[in-house]
């Protein structure tokens, strides 16, 4: 779905501050107008605001959809926004395969009838030391895992981005090894914070954001949250992941946001929140330590970065 430019600018006006949002009835009208959603994506700003943590402000729809790392559409931050026009996110199906009882090609429309779309306002922390706050719509990955019904031997999940060089110009170049793959350990995948997102700000995901369906794992660096997922494989060993294959010393399999483990290129101690001038201190697990640290009990996170 294309968003009119006029519609986008209206977003920049309505964002960020609760007071402003609450009084902005006109903007709510715009949101209601967007229509044609696959699932009933919530566009009620009050719901987003209730989920905002203290000191966090939502980033604007424009910021979120014009500043992306999605090398399938080019390496520049605005490339995905500029070059993703030919990508066709509909119709879509996801292949469930590997160590499961119900291997299948599941149609996205049908899948969305089986799940309940929820609102999740998450911080997204890029390994490049910038961050945003994004109101996602999606459903827990665990619901899809239930449908797949994994065998007890399935310990990890690998995700694969669709490979369509004709629609994704970046895939014609050898920027990375295509298709992009990522992985999670089963307990990370079933963690309630881990979602598959189909929308943000009440709109279906735009192509540059990983339409029509992407992973969001808020306590890990952004590159773990793989976009435009075409297949999900249940495996017994730690699967390969694109960036950690390419530079294993820089990107680990876990890639939890960790202010204590620096990347050779970026200090991970601080981050620039998009839209702010002074850097913020990066929080362990991107501020989700309470919810997720038990997953890594006893692990040396300097070794398993």
């Amino acid at each position, binding site marked *: 779905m294309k968003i009119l430019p006029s519609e986008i600018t209206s977003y920049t006006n309505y964002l960020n501050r609760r007071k402003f949002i609450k009084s902005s009835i006109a903007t709510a009208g715009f949101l209601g107008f967007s229509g044609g959603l696959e699932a009933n994506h919530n566009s009620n700003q009050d719901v987003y605001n209730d989920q905002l943590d203290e000191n966090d402000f939502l980033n604007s729809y*424009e*910021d979120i959809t*014009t*500043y992306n790392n999605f*090398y399938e559409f080019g*390496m520049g*931050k*605005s490339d995905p926004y500029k070059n993703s026009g030919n990508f066709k996110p509909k119709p879509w199906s996801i292949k469930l395969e590997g160590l499961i009882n119900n291997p299948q090609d599941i149609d996205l429309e049908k899948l969305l009838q089986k799940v309940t779309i929820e609102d999740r306002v998450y911080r997204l922390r890029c390994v*490049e030391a*910038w961050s945003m706050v994004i109101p996602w719509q999606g459903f827990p990955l665990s619901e899809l895992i239930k449908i797949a019904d994994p065998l007890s031997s399935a310990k990890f999940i690998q995700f694969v981005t669709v490979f369509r060089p004709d629609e994704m110009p970046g895939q014609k*170049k*050898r*920027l*990375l090894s295509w298709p992009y793959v990522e992985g999670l350990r089963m307990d990370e995948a079933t963690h309630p914070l881990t979602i598959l997102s189909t929308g943000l700000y009440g709109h279906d995901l735009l192509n540059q954001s990983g339409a029509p369906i992407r992973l969001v794992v808020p306590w890990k660096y952004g590159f773990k949250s793989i976009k435009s997922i075409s297949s999900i494989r249940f495996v017994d060993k730690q699967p390969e992941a694109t960036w950690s294959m*390419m530079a294993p010393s820089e990107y680990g399999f876990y890639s939890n946001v960790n202010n204590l483990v*620096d990347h*050779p*290129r*970026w*200090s991970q*101690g*601080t981050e*620039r929140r*998009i839209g702010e*001038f*002074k*850097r913020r201190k990066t929080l362990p697990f991107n501020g989700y330590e309470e919810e997720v640290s038990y997953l890594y009990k006893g692990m040396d996170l300097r070794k398993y970065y």
Partner: protein
Amino acid sequence: MISTKSFKKIKPLIFILIFSPSIYWSFQFINGSLGVNPIEKLMDNLGETALRLIVLTLFISSLSEYKKFRFLIEIRRMIGLFAFFYVCCHFLTYIVLDHFFDINFIIKDILKRPFITFGFISFVLLIPLALTSPKKILKKLGYKVWKKIHYLIYPAAILSSVHFYMLVRANKIEPAIYIFLILLLLLYRLFYKIIRPLLVR
């Protein structure tokens, strides 16, 4: 053939041409039209311009050996100083806008992260070049000493292109081109200045 004299006339034009991007980006920065992450964008633009100008001075040095291109030497100092200007702006953006004078952090960053270490050394190497650029100082030092100092441009150029190479996450073609060009020009100089005279003798 372009004469040095006629080339001098367009020097102000070249000055404006090279200076104006910095003005334009500053305006865009203040204006809020430098994209979603304006500090990063500004720093990238300034750094890349600096590197391009450094490579340009190397080209000028080699080309101006030929009679046809002798006139180019007329703008080498200016371009070199502009390269230093853009390097300074790049470094100031890092200190002021990116880290807002968090000196402890910056020192650690320079020591710890090789790509920043390289960039910083390159900046330091360029300082004596800028300081010795006035003609008066050239005369005081004598051409031989001056020239030796100005050979620092080669390590500075290599370090700054490696700095760029290490920063880029994937598809390192562009920084690789800069490294290649710099090495090529260095080899060319080495051959003509050192190896060929030996052979001829």
